[in-house]
């Protein structure tokens, strides 16, 4: 295929067998769905072998009622080749109030630091190995994770006093 990014995707599929479970290039966005335990290998390979120097964006999507419920989405950009690739990792909801867990990529891409904190804040997804996993946009006393689809928009939060 000639459309951009797919050569990198092909190499990714060939080089790390079993890592990419599914892939597509809908609307020209090259996408690879990666098994959760292979994420670190895939990111390392993308950075060191395929020249994706920049991790542009980390976010998550909550597909409530679908399995796996969460998807963590990484957008990478290669300045050397002017290519983009999207990596998605499905995460099941462990239930009973526990947080789903995924490996942090902060050691590979420092830009992930704040973005992973935001995903943790908004979706309650725990990034294993993150150096400083705190809430970032909301305050520590906030209850729940507001971008989850089962968080009602109108829900009120308890008032907290000033902290010093």
């Amino acid at each position, binding site marked *: 295929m000639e459309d951009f990014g797919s050569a990198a995707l092909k190499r990714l599929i060939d080089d790390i067998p079993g890592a990419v479970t599914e892939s597509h290039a*809908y*609307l020209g*966005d090259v*996408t690879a769905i990666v098994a959760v335990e292979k994420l670190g290998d895939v990111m390392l390979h993308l950075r060191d072998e395929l020249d994706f*120097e*920049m*991790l*542009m*964006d980390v*976010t998550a*999507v909550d*597909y409530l009622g679908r399995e796996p419920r969460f998807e963590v*989405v990484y*957008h990478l950009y290669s*300045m050397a080749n*002017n290519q*983009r690739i*999207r990596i998605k990792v499905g995460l099941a909801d462990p239930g009973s109030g526990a947080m789903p867990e995924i490996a942090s990529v902060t050691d590979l*891409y*420092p*830009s992930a*630091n*704040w*973005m992973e904190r*935001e995903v943790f804040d*908004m979706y309650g997804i725990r990034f294993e190995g993150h150096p400083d996993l705190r*809430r*970032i*946009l*909301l*305050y520590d006393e906030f209850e729940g994770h*507001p*971008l989850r689809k089962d*968080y009602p*928009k109108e829900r009120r939060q308890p008032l907290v006093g000033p902290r010093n």
Partner: protein
Amino acid sequence: MAQQQPPLHFPDRPADLEEDFERDLHTEHQVLNMGPSHPATHGTVKFLIELDGENIVNLDIQVGYLHRGFEKECESGTWYQAIPYTDRLNYNSAILANIGYVMAVEKLLGIETTERCQWLRVMSGEISRIADHLTRCGAACLELAAMTPFLYGIEARELSWDMLEMLCGARVTSNYIRIGGVKHDMPRDFPATAKDFIARIRQLLVDFDDVITSNRIFVDRLKDTGVISKEECLKHAVTGPILRSAGVPFDVRKANPYLVYDQIDFDVPIGEVGDNYDRYLVCAEEMQQSLRIVEQCLAHLEKIGPGPVNLDDPRVRWPAKGKVFNRMEELIQQFKSVTEGPRVPAGEGYFAIESANGELGFYLVSDGSAVPVKVRCRPPSFINLAPMGEMLKGALLADLIPTFDFINMIGGECDR
């Protein structure tokens, strides 16, 4: 006769007095709270600064004071209802955020707007970029205690906002871009007025340049402060003028041209060392380039003459009023368009534009309904602010002000 005192004897004192002085001076690190509302920072952000004397040892940046739940609100309205929220991301250059979101929706819908509309979008976006850079440079001067250049900058920004007001009726939150088009064409007297205003903005930029660019105080405050190298920029995914000031000529308008940027002649300025002074120079030159782009747009719009500014697509645009009042189908379609707006095909898409601060991306997920599943904004302010702690490690406390100014963190966009 007083008895002579014997000389004082310090048995522990070493021979070298200076060394002794150094050893005895015991200091503790001091923690300073700066913000969330501080007169020298534009934007609501709190810095927790650990200081050793005047040097920054550790800097914890606490953002989120302006969090309004942008994504949650977008996910509870229709695709159209998100456009006014995008105005309120970066309120200095609202149109650029409009363009980013709308073009991401258009990507999912698989539509491309008319030629005249594309030029109008580029023109209004570049006027916004000028306003944004003027705010950055002007406010930086003000916070370094230079009032006069701030007033020059703000007068020029008012002129660019006046142009936007002529275009869309609002100065700041413009809400001008629509899915498949723009709100309406420019008024008939816009090109002539814009030419006058551009001439005045040019003059103000010259005045600004005269008082600032080789001003000793300004240069001393900015040179070699807040330095970030090319490699660090890439690691931290820093984009926009900060990345370009470090010497990387990355601009989404050139790398992945959208709209009609591939038909426009403009240059991408880059810096050398990546300090605040380079950032100022890059922004100053980008304003000149944006003025060039606006002039090319005006010339081209004149050349192609009047034409449709909205796509003739019943999914995204309302039918003509004459038909709505006289025909049943169009009346129903109008009703459906107003109450729920377009249904976007199921799928996902990421679209990035070059905003004034860097790559502004929108990642949208649709399930085929009239309400988005996910509207993620990749905010350049947020991501550019993250490495500020490392940029300022060991620097003087006073360097924090210009560095923060030239990162140009906009609370609305950073905290969403």
